[in-house]
């Protein structure tokens, strides 16, 4: 596609009317919790948006994030935007391969130095010099380092890029770390976690960046507040059952069939921040809890190491019974031991007992 085409030209060519485009912009505005009056501003910015260069680096990942993003049963505006941005480098989606692909990347980095948007999915292994994930002989670590300086902003897509994800889980044999661990405060980093993230969340972040040229408001985990500001628990439609104390105890009991809260089945909704309960998945079809499965907490750091997915938040993440039983036995044994020791102590004191005689009472009148 020609580089100097406007986004709206591209969309028109694809058959998206101005009306459809404006509808998208309104949806974007409300998704990002912006006032309705922002929709025209979004439309305006997007219309003027030249196709920004985007370099997408895929590291130690499963490609689930790309799959989530690109999965569409019918063409959606989101996927068209992605098509429309100048995706100069993307393993899965690009046509080029081998040295040609790497050249395309280096070329884009040089030409749009300081202006390209860097998107990363997958974690970065750093153990043993980073040999556990290489592309064209170059470690992920090196590739990321090279790309940081010229990036305007970096978006870490998926929990692996945002927090280290599955490779980072105990015992982390590859020394996997997150994008932020490498970049630190050199460039603005936006984390878009999820395993995978909701498609519209990614495009919402991009739309924000394209509209305002700035990074959206982030929480302490660098996640956009507009999508990750509320916990699943706070937006869950089953919340009234939690508050009342009505829980499904198995996957097919009366509670489950009645759509009661899934806390007892291990739902991590209360400690998980994402847009699943509001935006949902597959164009708003459903989300895990609605389908009867507890939330795994996949947009939180270290969710793989946070105890079983099916053990409730109030229960131990390690086995306690054996330890408690051992403690009872140990307490009993030491109790008896010290009891006997103290008996001996008393006996010794008894031996030091000087028998009291009348003389000990001292002078009396």
């Amino acid at each position: 596609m020609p580089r100097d085409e406007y986004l709206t030209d591209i969309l028109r060519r694809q058959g998206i009317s101005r009306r459809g485009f404006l509808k998208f912009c309104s949806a974007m505005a409300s998704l990002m919790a912006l006032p309705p009056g922002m929709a025209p501003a979004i439309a305006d910015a997007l219309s003027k948006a030249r196709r920004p260069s985007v370099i997408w680096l895929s590291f130690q990942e499963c490609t689930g994030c790309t799959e989530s993003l690109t999965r569409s049963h019918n063409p959606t505006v989101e996927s068209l935007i992605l098509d429309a941005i100048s995706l100069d480098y993307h393993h899965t989606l690009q046509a080029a391969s081998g040295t040609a692909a790497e050249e395309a990347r280096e070329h884009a980095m040089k030409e749009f130095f300081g202006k390209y948007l860097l998107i990363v999915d997958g974690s970065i292994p750093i153990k043993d010099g980073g040999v556990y994930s290489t592309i064209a002989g170059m470690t992920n670590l090196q590739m990321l380092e090279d790309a940081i300086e010229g990036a305007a902003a970096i978006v870490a897509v998926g929990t692996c890029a945002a927090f280290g994800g599955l490779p980072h889980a105990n015992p982390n044999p590859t020394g996997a770390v997150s994008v932020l661990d490498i970049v630190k405060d050199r460039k603005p980093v936006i984390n878009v976690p999820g395993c995978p993230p909701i498609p519209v969340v990614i495009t919402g972040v991009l739309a924000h960046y394209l509209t305002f040229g700035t990074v959206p408001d982030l929480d302490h985990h660098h996640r956009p507040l507009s999508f990750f500001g509320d916990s699943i628990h706070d937006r869950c439609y089953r919340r009234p059952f939690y508050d009342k104390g009505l829980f499904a105890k198995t996957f097919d009991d009366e509670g489950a069939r009645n759509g009661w809260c899934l806390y007892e089945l291990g739902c991590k909704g209360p400690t998980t921040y994402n847009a699943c309960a509001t935006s949902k998945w597959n164009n708003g079809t459903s989300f895990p809890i609605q389908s009867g499965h507890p939330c795994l907490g996949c947009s939180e750091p270290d969710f793989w190491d946070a105890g079983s997915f099916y053990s409730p938040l109030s229960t131990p993440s390690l086995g306690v019974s054996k330890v408690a039983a051992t403690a009872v036995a140990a307490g009993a044994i030491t109790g008896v031991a010290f009891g006997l020791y103290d008996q001996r102590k008393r006996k010794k004191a008894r031996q030091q007992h000087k028998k009291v005689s009348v003389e000990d009472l001292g002078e009396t009148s």
Partner: protein
Amino acid sequence: MTTAQRAITAMVEQIDGPVASYFSSCVHCGMCADACLFYTETQDPRFTPIYKLLPMRKVWQQEFTFWGRLMKSIGLAKSVTDEEMAEWEELVYDTCTLCGKCSLACPVGNDITYMIRKFREAMVASGHAPQGLKEAMKRAIEIGSPMGITLTTLQAQIKHAEEELGYKVPIDEEGAEYMMVLSSAEIAQFQEIIPAVARIFKAANVSWTLCSTAFEGTNTGIQIGSSDLAAELIERIVAGAEQLKVKTVISPECGHAYIALRWEGPNLIGRPYKFKVQHILEILEELRKQGKLKTKGKDETRLTYHDPCQIARRGGIVEQPRNLINQFAANFVEMKEHGEYNWCCGGGGGVAANERAEERRLDVFSKKKQQLDEIKVERIVTACSNCRNMLEDGLDHYNMSDIEVVGLTETLVQFLDDTNQAND
């Protein structure tokens, strides 16, 4: 060993399983204060029963708990000092009669009285005890009675009784079933007990005897808190009982004598008795139940019964005196808190022998006065000579001397129907 070390060693000796569990459970709720007449009548928080044990708690902490032992081993624990023992002497001896009401009131079940008794052992070991009590103890060991009563006095009272009765009072009779022990106060002041007991036993055809070497039941050793000295006194009674080969020793109308002889005795001397011990009230009730204690006539005087603490609350003899009183009293009213809930008269536990505490014990008699004011009686029956003296002192102090104080046995005998008995 310094005096402080002697005190600590004595406490280590005394802290047993129960004491350890009591200190483990105390949450400083202060409920024991409401059960102690020394607190209720003065509102002085230092007289809270568990507060009186503070030095002992320190020793428990430093010698028997993990944290305490740790702190002691690294030198961060302040051990009990001689000054503390001196300071606590007044609390332990002047404001506690070992009455046991606090032990009944504690929500976590602490037997505070039990602990005070043990704490006094440490006081004695380190030389701390009230002068008056020390002197009484000396007299008890050296003369044979804390009041200084000798066999001569007893013999005089026996002669008196024999003149009244017209027959001999048995003394040193080997092979009798019962050996009656008396208390000094009875021999000195309430000597009617001797002919009373003689008549009752004669009517019931029971063989009994006094013992010339073991006629004193009062145990000052228990009151001052010295197991060694208490044991010495017990040994005299045991020797007398074994020599006379009696089956049962009778504990007199005296509170601490019962506790000393019946419950602490064998443990003090380190061996079980070869005889039984029973309180005079238990004997009388047994005789009554067997129909061997016939009475005639009833007393219309409005009277009440004051339960001596060591006999009722700490000794378990609650029903027997009531059954006996109901034999002769037609107008028996109970104080609101009676039986094991009765309030102490204020004279037990060595307090009466302690001149330093005289003002205080009269002061706190206001509790007993309050009890009596509620029921307005003419007479108080009791079964402990120490209580009798204290009640009289207290009533006098509060200008209530129109209320008569009498002993149970001597009153019961006034209604004894022994006219059918052939005289000796």
